[in-house]
């Protein structure tokens, strides 16, 4: 085969398709002018190839000047747009611009290869932004397309586009085992390879270390996953699923903050009183330091700390998905309160909430003790016309008083905050605990999903004889919110629940969602979460635990060289399989005849063999003669057409097995 120098319009179309799709997801991330320029260059190149526009290729100096100017323009533009920052985004923008220019400049085979390999590189850059399954699948497809463009470029025109694409897909699929092998065994770095400066540090919306009435209403509508939990064995009951987050002590009347209370070191004063659950949490990044744990955590993992208020905090901000294992007991006692903490748990802004204070004073005046006050408060929420809603009316003036006595409509934050204020007004230490409540069990992969919509706030009350006790005023108002979880609860509120029982479409949708989430979970677990530690575990299971990273690399290198040498030896020893698809079809035909007891001798030409077969099996004569003639034409007359016919005839050719002698 002669060396290809020119690029046909078909090669170019393939290449452009590949590079456009490789660029695709970047379109929204690039400065808007850049994609415009890119596509203008692309259209120019295509129009030039079609003879509809003049390309600057004739004059080498003109081409040189144009590309140099273009490159300078891209540099200046990117520099200006990103204000001199050369981070991830600027780098990607630069790459895209330069690929466009290279596309215009493309003239010889060498340029074609450069553009294709740049397209491969573009594919990789998407992983800076997203590591989701969908991204991986999409980029897999793009990789196949680019490979097909390379194959198209190196194939004679007689080979169809579909054949090229099929071969590309096969090649890429065949390389998957090698990819998995390298992925599993190549020494892994802690964290991603690219420590790119840039804007990738923002986490998703979640809880915060303070609360203001109205904030969690927003979360109530967010379907994003907060974290996933896989229990090691039995799961706790749904109403015990309180996932503890930041504990809020300090209030200015409207806003609640964690403050500096209970941050000091000390033994965790928790005692388990029931079964312990071991579980693994896969936390989505939220760019804060707290970690979630089932109330109450009795044993923690590495790289985290527990405060005296049982809050888990990470040593660093959580910027990537984090996996950790905990142990909890849902029946526990927490009996430790320092003087400082007692003060904080009783703090109220002076002169705020006059009506609330009056109510608390009235209860005390009625001779109620601590438990009596708590019971009265819960009673009030349950009995009086309080309602649970995710869209409460706005509160001007004193929000606690306004909520407790006027609007009486709110959600967990309103209830938790006003409940704690009531108790503190009555002189009972109390605090607000934020976190998540509930979660959806995924039967496909046996784990629970907790979404941002499961965010919750409740209260903890101190009794001198019992310690900290959880009290959830929301449960008093809307018990289903806690026993069903927010998802079911809000569906019930909208009257969808009854409908869903009958509607198989909705049920199917629900199942599909669970399946998809399970796939995502496994992806996070095994692909994105494949950490150095997991790798060590795997190596130990394979009996390679003693290998250090350096030794592993050397071993892999040696194995790779040996494999390549073996392959080279095999290839050199065997006569090269020549001729491409026509020869393959012919060999397939010969194999079938060999199975039918008529093997072709290596030295037999096609017509010779066909004549022998025809003499031996008259029933096959017309078929084999036609196939042999067609093959001879394709192979020895370089006939441009007929490959498809040959393949079809060979596919349909069934000489059958050799008849066994009776």
């Amino acid at each position, binding site marked *: 085969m002669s060396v290809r120098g020119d690029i046909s319009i078909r090669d170019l179309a393939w290449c452009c398709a590949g590079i456009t799709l490789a660029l695709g997801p970047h379109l929204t991330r690039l400065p808007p002018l850049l994609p415009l320029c890119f596509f203008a260059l692309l259209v120019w190149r295509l129009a030039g190839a079609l003879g509809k526009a003049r390309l600057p290729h004739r004059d080498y100096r003109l081409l040189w000047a144009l590309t140099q100017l273009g490159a300078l323009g891209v540099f200046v533009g990117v520099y200006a747009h990103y204000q001199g920052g050369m981070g991830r985004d600027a780098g990607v923008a630069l790459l895209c611009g330069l690929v466009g220019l290279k596309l215009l400049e493309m003239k010889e085979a060498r340029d074609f290869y450069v553009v294709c390999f740049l397209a491969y590189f573009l594919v990789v850059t998407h992983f800076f932004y997203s590591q989701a399954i969908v991204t991986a699948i999409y980029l897999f497809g793009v990789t196949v397309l680019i490979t097909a463009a390379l194959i198209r470029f190196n194939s004679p025109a007689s080979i169809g586009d579909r054949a090229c694409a099929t071969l590309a897909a096969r090649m890429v699929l065949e390389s998957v085992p090698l990819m998995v092998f390298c992925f599993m065994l190549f020494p892994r770095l802690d964290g991603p390879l690219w420590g790119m400066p840039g804007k990738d540090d923002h986490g998703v919306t979640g809880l915060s270390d303070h609360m203001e009435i109205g904030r969690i209403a927003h979360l109530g509508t967010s379907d994003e996953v907060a974290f996933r939990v896989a229990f090691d064995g039995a799961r706790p009951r749904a109403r015990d699923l309180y996932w503890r987050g930041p504990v809020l002590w300090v209030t200015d009347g409207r806003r609640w903050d964690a403050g500096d209370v209970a941050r000091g070191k000390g033994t965790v004063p928790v005692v388990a009183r029931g079964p312990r659950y071991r579980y693994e949490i896969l936390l989505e990044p939220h760019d804060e330091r707290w970690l979630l744990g089932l109330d109450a955590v009795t044993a923690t993992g590495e790289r985290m700390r527990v405060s005296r208020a049982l809050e888990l905090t990470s040593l660093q901000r959580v910027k990537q998905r984090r996996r950790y294992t905990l142990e909890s007991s849902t029946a526990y006692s927490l009996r430790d309160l320092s003087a400082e903490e007692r003060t904080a748990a009783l703090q109220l802004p002076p002169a705020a909430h006059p009506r609330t204070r009056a109510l608390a004073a009235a209860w005390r005046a009625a001779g109620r003790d601590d438990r009596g006050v708590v019971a009265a408060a819960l009673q009030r929420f349950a009995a009086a016309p309080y309602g649970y809603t995710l869209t409460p009316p706005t509160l001007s003036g004193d929000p606690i008083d306004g909520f407790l006595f006027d609007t009486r409509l709110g959600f967990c934050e309103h209830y938790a905050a006003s409940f704690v204020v009531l108790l503190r007004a009555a002189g009972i230490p109390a605090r607000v605990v934020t976190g998540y409540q509930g979660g959806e069990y995924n039967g496909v992969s046996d784990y629970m999903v907790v979404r941002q919509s499961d965010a919750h706030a409740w209260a903890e009350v101190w009794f001198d004889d019992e310690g900290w006790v959880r009290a959830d005023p929301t449960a008093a108002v809307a018990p289903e919110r806690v026993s069903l979880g927010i998802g079911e609860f809000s569906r019930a509120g909208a009257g969808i629940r009854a409908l869903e029982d009958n509607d198989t479409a909705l049920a199917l949708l629900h199942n599909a969602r669970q399946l998809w989430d399970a796939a995502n979970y496994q992806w996070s677990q095994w692909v994105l979460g494949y950490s150095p530690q997991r790798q060590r575990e795997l190596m130990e299971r394979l009996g390679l635990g003693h290998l250090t990273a350096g030794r592993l690399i050397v071993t892999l290198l040696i194995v790779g060289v040996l494999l390549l040498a073996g392959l080279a030896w095999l290839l050199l020893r065997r*006569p090269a399989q*020549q*001729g491409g698809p026509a*020869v393959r079809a012919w060999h397939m035909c010969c194999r079938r005849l060999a199975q039918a007891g008529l093997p072709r*001798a*290596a*030295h*037999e*030409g*096609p*017509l*010779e063999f066909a004549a022998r077969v025809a003499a031996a099996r008259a029933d096959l004569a017309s078929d084999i003669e036609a196939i042999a003639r067609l093959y*001879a*034409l394709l*192979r*020895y*007359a*370089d*006939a441009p057409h007929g490959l498809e016919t040959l393949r079809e005839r060979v596919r349909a050719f069934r000489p059958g097995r050799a008849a066994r002698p009776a």
Partner: protein
Amino acid sequence: MSITPFKPKAAADASSRVAALVSAASGIVLGKSDVLRLAVTCLLAGGHLLLEDLPGVGKTTLAQTLARLLGLSYQRLQCTSDLMPADVIGVSVYDRNDSQFRFHPGPVFTQVLLADEINRATPRAQSALLEAMEERQVSVEGRALPLPAPFFVIATQNPSDQVGTYPLPESQLDRFLMRLSLGYPGRDAERELLQGRDRRALLADLEPVFGVDDLLDLQRQVDAVHVADALVDYLQALLARSRELPGLAHGLSPRAGLALLRAARAWALVHGRGHVLPEDLKAVLPSVATHRLVAREAGVRAEATITQLLRTVAVI
């Protein structure tokens, strides 16, 4: 490699014309259509033919039949040990009337030359003839005189009779594209020969099937027969294998390769194809290669080696 448009129609036409020629010749040379087809192939390829056989099996008849059917002029040269180069090429004789030397062309100035028992001629006479075969022209007194076109030499030699002969060296055997032998006729053919009319009388009645232009046209078509890369691969494998076969003193030369390809092209055309198949190479190989190969040990027949060669090279 230039790609010639594939013209199945022209090839089929050539094939039917050659078939007509062969069947007409079979009426004279009985029961030898395979040899006839190879002989015609050799002529279409523009090569010279060496017939090696016993006397009396019809070598001369074959040569005459072909010349006649092709409508070509014919000369016979009986080689003896006193044959001089001038007897082949011609001689300049002083003409008294014109007072100058006049060239009298020898038998070589013809379209078909039958050189009978070429191995009886002395090396000098042989080389004069072989030079004419190669160059297709003769030099007389410093002038180059072209021979007519087409120009074929059909030489015969007798393999069994070695007394008083000068066997052609390998380098000169190489000038013949093919070496064929007729062998004894089959039983039926021999009976027909014995009972039928005299061959000479039959020959006299024979009408040409082709004109000279037809033949030249067919020769041009041979040049246009397509040779694919895959076929060249096979040919090279054959050549390479011939050089490493243990039974041979030396293998096939590049010139032998060219000759093989040329003969295979003509053979493909004779069979109505515009492209060469491995089968074509295999069909012409024994005739083209046997006389070019030298067995390492006396008594080993080159034919057996050729069979071995064909059996050990794979067609892919």
